[in-house]
């Protein structure tokens, strides 16, 4: 457990962690998604309600869900102890019939024990700053893994340190924002410990991604993340 805690401490300081040793064919995943008979559906996450943005601009479908439905459940794993309670009790949805390559990729990265979703963020919108550990009560060992599929030019992922987001005097300071764009074909661990957000400032490009949760307590995930952290050469959250 100590070595997991050590890895958690290291990964919590990295805003955007590419898993560069792993590659996938983003075009092939996109083709599978676009030829699937189910369109992505508008989604209203609970955390969106308070974030002041156009709620109809986030579409998704479940690859793994707790109830096996393809339509995403708003409360899947949010709340004290809730994700731990349902962890490992997720099921492949009906999309598995249509997306064999997509499942092959996410399964090889440790997906399947918690939610995995196809997600679109439409042009001109954003998600809202939030934090999985403190606001959704997710365990710190839970990693958010993003598989970018299409990435508009003006799309960005952003992270702000917890203490700055909650404590900074914004009347006299602006926080340090750790921004990144993600390249299709390389998985990225998006920091779930600190506050994060995504912005699609593009005029017409849709961001398409696979997002899933994987836990460092799984050896496969631990090894992948340990390797990624050891190879990481970017900036750290102060």
């Amino acid at each position, binding site marked *: 457990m100590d070595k997991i805690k050590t890895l958690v401490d290291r990964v919590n300081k990295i805003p955007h962690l590419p898993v560069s040793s792993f590659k996938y064919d983003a075009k092939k995943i996109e083709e599978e998604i676009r030829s699937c008979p189910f369109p992505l559906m508008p989604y209203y996450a609970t955390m969106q309600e308070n974030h002041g*943005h156009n709620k109809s601009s986030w579409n998704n479908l479940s690859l793994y869900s707790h109830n096996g439905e393809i339509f995403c459940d708003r409360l899947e794993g949010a709340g004290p102890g809730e994700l731990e309670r349902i962890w490992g009790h997720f099921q492949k949805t009906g999309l598995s019939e249509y997306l064999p390559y997509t499942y092959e990729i996410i399964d090889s990265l440790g997906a399947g024990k918690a939610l995995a979703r196809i997600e679109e963020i439409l042009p001109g919108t954003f998600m809202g*700053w939030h934090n999985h550990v403190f606001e959704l009560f997710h365990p710190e060992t839970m990693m958010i893994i993003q598989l970018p599929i299409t990435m508009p030019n003006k799309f960005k992922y952003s992270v702000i340190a*917890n*203490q700055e987001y*909650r*404590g900074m*005097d914004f009347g006299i300071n*602006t926080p340090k924002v750790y921004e990144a764009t993600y390249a299709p074909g390389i998985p990225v661990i998006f920091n779930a410990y600190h506050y994060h957000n995504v912005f699609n400032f593009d005029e017409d490009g849709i961001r398409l991604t696979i997002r899933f949760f994987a836990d460092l307590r799984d050896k496969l995930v631990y090894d992948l993340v340990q390797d990624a952290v050891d190879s990481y050469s970017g900036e750290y959250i102060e």
Partner: protein
Amino acid sequence: MRLILIVENTLNKLNEIAHLPLGIEFDHTLILQEIENLPYKLEKYRSALSNDKIMDIHDEELWDSIALYSIDGNVRSNPAELWTGDFVKTNAIKLCPYLDSVLQSVGGGKLLARIEVFSKGGSAGWHSHVKEAGQPDWISVWNLPIIMPKESKYSVISYMDYRGSDYLKPIKVYEQWYEPGKLYCLNSYHYHNAFNYSEEPMIMVRFYVDTRDTLVQTILQNSIDTYKDELILTYEEYISSLGNS
């Protein structure tokens, strides 16, 4: 039905005002004397609101508190205290007759009331009572400033900016220094905070009132009617402003 509409209109307007002077004055020096004579020590306090689960905003505790009205009657402020319930006098307010008379004269004493002190560098942390902590929308947060160093302030940010800005440019912050001896309503619908940069302590009494109460309603309505300062954008105005930027 008419009363409900009046309350709704007042609340809607109140949500657009960051800091509302309530036009009521009191003797803050007398209240300070009562506080200084209390036999109770100010206790270190960390709000469950602003720190979410366990988040440490400061390296050291810089927020002290004494409960005046609480559900369990304890002078030690409870971060997990519910918004509503049978609030009773603590032993502290029983020793502050003038402060109690001020609170009761404006509709206080039925919900939470606390003495609060920020020492140098102290702040509460950004939080919204309504948006993230389940505060009923009929509760209004009022403050009696007792000692307000010039280097102290209350700050409010619209929830749309707080949760939606990309923070590359400064965001609009509604800041105000509260004059000791005057009663203010602090916006608890949007994100708010207080900061003290002075060597002197920042001392205030924070208490909640029920806006459905006729007395409270009258005070608020009169203050809103005379309020001439800037307003926080509504959600619709905010979305529209994004399109124009």
